[in-house]
């Protein structure tokens, strides 16, 4: 058992590095999604990605990095807290948009959509 723990200890920083890198990549994808996607709801989806998966990956990376200490317990708590609030936040935004009557843009994707402002109904 002790060797496994020992092995785990040696490869922990690398593991943490990999997880952090993955988290970074996810966030990058989310950010570019927010910029490039055509309408509100798709952008919201991309933002949702960074909120949930990206941050959680970064947090686990940090926990791995700091090992079994008080700090990682706090990080876990932060993770739990984020798990609860960020989806609720995204829901609230989507709900408000829906309430305000914003219809998602259906149909095939055109690189430069005609300027008929179909987003906002009425």
């Amino acid at each position, binding site marked *: 058992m002790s060797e496994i723990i020992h092995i785990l200890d040696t490869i922990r920083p690398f593991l943490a590095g990999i997880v952090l890198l993955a988290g970074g990549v996810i966030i990058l994808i989310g950010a570019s999604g927010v910029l490039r996607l055509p309408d509100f709801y798709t952008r919201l989806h991309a933002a949702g990605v960074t909120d949930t998966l990206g941050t959680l990956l970064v947090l686990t990376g940090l926990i791995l990095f700091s090992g079994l200490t008080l700090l990682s317990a706090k990080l876990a708590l932060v993770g739990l*807290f984020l798990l609860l*609030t960020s989806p*609720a936040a995204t829901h*609230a935004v989507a*709900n*408000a948009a829906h*309430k305000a009557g914003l219809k998602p843009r259906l149909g095939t994707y055109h690189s430069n959509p005609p300027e008929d402002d179909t987003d906002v109904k009425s």
Partner: protein
Amino acid sequence: MNGEFLTPIDAFTVIDLVFMMMLVTVGIAIVRLKDLFAIVMLSGVYSLVSAAWFVSLDAVDVAFTEAAVGAGIATVLMLGAMLLTARKAAPAKPARHWAALIIVCATGAALLYATVDMPSFGDPLSAPNAYVGLEYLKQTGPDTGVPNVVSAILASYRGYDTFGETTVILTAGLGVILILGLGGPARRKKKSVAAKTAAGKSLSSHHVVLRVVSKLMIPIIIVYGAYVQFHGDFGPGGGFQAGLIIASSIVLYALIFGIDAAKEAVPPSLVRLGAALGVLIYGGVGVINLLLGGNFLSYNTLNPAHPTHGQELGIMFVEIGVLVTVASVMLIIFYGFTSRQPDISDKDW
């Protein structure tokens, strides 16, 4: 007196520069934009980025405060103010304000003029770092026994300044009470039971996610606030940030369940009393020290046997005073804004 020390160009400096550039861009965006809603959000972003920048400058307490104030309360209050005014700012007339331009340039020039002789960033031999700053680092341990030097300076060495600052916050709250008024106690709508259940149902029907999450989160936020308060002696935190966090939890409750529910939970008269109470707690500690024979705010008289315990006790009480005042004043400002216009109608959501 720029000594031979030159700030090393390493990763941290690069991050700082990035933060600063982000701040500049967000600042320009705020100036250029006309849509007030975007401006409010951008100011929240501005505070968050500056909080991150402070962290990289190793000023963690300031970062915490900036995050709590800028990103937290200030955005909500500006939203409240925005709801009172208009969605779009009137386009500024393209008049040339020469006088303003000249004054701004002069001030900028004066500041640049001062940078020439400034000690370079992080220079250990510069006056602040070498003189009293060093003295504080050495003395805090033996004098007050409080690991977090910032809290020690804030509450004990320069406790009188913080007493003044708390009074400044009280005065601001007083201003809001006098000018805007708190809109009176919760308006009990005398509705029949049926109407109440109907309203209740309609309210709960489309807020269910937010209501559940906020019901779950508010206690956690308050506990977290308490943690920040009592943890102030060891890590970043203290009365000011804790007060803000607790106030933000109540504001969250008001946003979700309506202003009247919040006014029932935390009545304006209590909030008005709280603002006064905080300063009185702070001043009370000082007066007790007077009565015990020391000067104003000399905490070691609280426990003559162990002066450091007296200091810790004093700092804790004083921070509680700050907490109460800050929380109450934030709520005063929130009640002040929201009481100026009808309940946030559902349509807006």
